[in-house]
């Protein structure tokens, strides 16, 4: 909301990652969202996660739809190409972009209106296809840009700022993603970066469809008494099932944990997802158990957060399609054009 650029000055001791970049090198232009918007915290978490993983900013493609959340890709990774597409259609654009060049990291940012209402179809199908991406929904349960109407993820019984009560069932995108075949599904809270940053890192290293539902309070329209997306409500009802540590292949594993409380998941790229259990009865390796756990706790009014489900041997769309390892956008005439001799044969077959 400020109109001044954020000062380029930074802390003199700001650490640098393996690429020699500081966290500030992963920022974008200054946010124009309302003060205190949870989405800005998510942008900060994305910046932190990309910096910690030493991702090359220009090797990320960031895509979004329409809405408050979809504005955020301008606010991080300004060395990346960004694409603000049309409402609810980011998944298809991302899928196409991913088909064209499998070597980039694809980061889809969407909101609850964008993904659960107008774009529910595209959301579902991108999960089904196993597009290799990190898909983040900044979920505030409300239409911010149009001033406070309920969205499809608003909980039944929650109250709008004007006092209206939502009578429609809320869509749980995380459960939907699990059911539809996403191979990495997490939920977190914009107000808890200790939990969120590792979850984003895990998603970025995950070789398949990774989905994170981030509860993100809308301070303008959904942070009041009676809302189930307010800072207070979420803090009181947050039920974290595990905490995650992402160890990239280059790092030595040193931390020690009591036996039995730890689950290690090795991914294709060699990275290790180290999960420390916070809820004894939670099993993030079972899709069905995870869905059942999340749903039964939801019935008790709890918001289950953490890495809900992960399938280490995920298969992505390119593997399904048998696409060449080279990015399709690098193939030239030589690889693509069969040439006149082949055409002559084709003609001959048609006489």
């Amino acid at each position, binding site marked *: 909301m400020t109109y001044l650029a954020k000062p380029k000055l930074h802390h003199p001791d700001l650490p640098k990652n393996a690429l020699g970049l500081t966290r500030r090198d992963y920022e974008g232009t*200054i946010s124009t969202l*309302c003060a205190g918007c949870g989405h800005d*915290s998510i942008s900060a978490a994305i910046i932190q996660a990309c910096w910690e993983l030493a991702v090359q900013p220009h090797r990320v493609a960031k895509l979004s739809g329409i809405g408050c959340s979809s504005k955020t890709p301008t606010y991080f990774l300004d060395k990346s190409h960004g694409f603000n597409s049309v409402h609810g259609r980011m998944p298809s654009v991302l899928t196409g972009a991913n088909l064209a060049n499998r070597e980039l990291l694809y980061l889809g940012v969407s909101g609850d209106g964008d993904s659960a209402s107008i774009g529910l179809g595209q959301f579902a199908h991108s999960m089904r296809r196993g597009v290799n991406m990190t898909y983040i929904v900044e979920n505030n349960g409300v239409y911010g840009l149009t001033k406070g109407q309920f969205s499809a993820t608003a909980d039944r019984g929650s109250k709008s700022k004007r006092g209206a009560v939502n009578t429609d069932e809320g869509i749980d995108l995380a459960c939907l993603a699990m059911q539809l075949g996403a191979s990495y599904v997490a939920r977190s809270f914009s107000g808890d970066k200790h939990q969120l940053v590792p979850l984003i890192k895990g998603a970025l290293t995950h070789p398949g469809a990774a989905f994170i539902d981030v509860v993100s309070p809308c301070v303008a329209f959904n942070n009041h008494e009676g809302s189930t997306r307010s800072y207070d409500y979420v803090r009181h009802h947050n039920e974290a099932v595990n905490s995650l540590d992402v160890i990239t292949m280059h790092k030595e594993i040193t931390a020690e944990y009591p036996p039995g409380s730890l689950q290690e998941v090795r991914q294709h790229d060699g990275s290790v997802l180290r999960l420390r259990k916070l809820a004894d009865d939670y099993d993030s390796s079972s899709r069905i158990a995870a869905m059942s756990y999340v749903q039964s706790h939801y019935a008790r009014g709890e918001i289950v957060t953490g890495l809900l489900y992960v399938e280490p041997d995920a298969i992505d769309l390119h593997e399904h399609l048998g696409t060449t390892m080279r990015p399709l956008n690098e193939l030239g005439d030589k690889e693509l054009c069969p040439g006149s001799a082949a055409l002559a044969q084709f003609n001959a077959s048609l006489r």
Partner: protein
Amino acid sequence: MIVLGGGNTAMDCCRSARRLGGEDVKVIVRSGFEEMKASPWEKEDAQHEGIPILNYLVPKSFQHEGGKLTGMTFEKVKAVYDDKGRRSLVPTGEPDESFECDQVLVAVGQENAFTWIERDIGIEFDKWGMPKLDEKTLQSTLPRVFFGGDAALGPKNIIWAVAHGHEAAVSIDKFCQGESLADRPPPHMNLVSQKMGIHEWSYDNNVVPDARYAVPLKELKLALKDIRTEVELGFDPQLAWKEAQRCLNCDVQTVFAPKLCIECDACVDICPMDCITFTPDGEEAEVRARLNAPSDNASQDLYVGAGLKTGRIMAKDEDVCLHCGLCAERCPTGAWDMQKFYLEMTHAGPGCRSRETPRQAA
């Protein structure tokens, strides 16, 4: 002409020499160029006027012929630092260097000399020949004599001299009123919110990373012609404005109201300097180590706000704050505010006296 010395006086000497007909003027210093006492801009100005500054040369001897100075010889040295970082200049072993000259100006320092004060009038002097003073009241051992400026506590700059003037005036006022000089009212201060609108402040909060603007100079040829010609032309209004925009707004403080805070992290995320952290409480040294950016400068206090809903504290490292106000702009509840700090020194006159009615706010 050789000028010996690396302070601002040496810079004055060499530049004056240029103006008074010195054709080949050089400055020769013992230390390295970087460590010279002269202000960087003074050195720049000297070099700008074609005066070479030769460093790491220790004077060894003067040469003369028939009673006339002909040159000087210097020993070449280098700086060597011990474990504690103390410097010593050690000969490099290279051959000595000699420079021709017919004059040498020695500009190696100056000191107070109170030869003009009779030693029997009641003012006592210490072993360095400086008057014994009460550092706070600036009163000498002769109660009705007060000192200020370089004459009081040794050479410092003009800002100190002004401050001495203030303090001495208070002392004199109280002395004349027959009051105790030690009983001095503290200065008055106030914090005033600067918020004007959603993103408007009544101070310029845009942090300008510009380097110092150079003051325009008179053309060299003209400047060197006459020692009475003023070299610096001064800023024009536009440049002066730009230079003023570099102000760090040290007078504007970030003020935190924990009761209003919803811990949304907006201030943490926006802070360009990473100086705000929400974290569990703890011992200062330990808290300092786990802030978003470790706070190593213990001489600068941490600003801490307690009483948050989650039981954590807000800890802000004031050492690196830019006073940009972005934390306050991003705060949805007004828990952060930018407030200007007003200081009013105690002035001589009724205000400094003990039996005083309360003063009006500044």
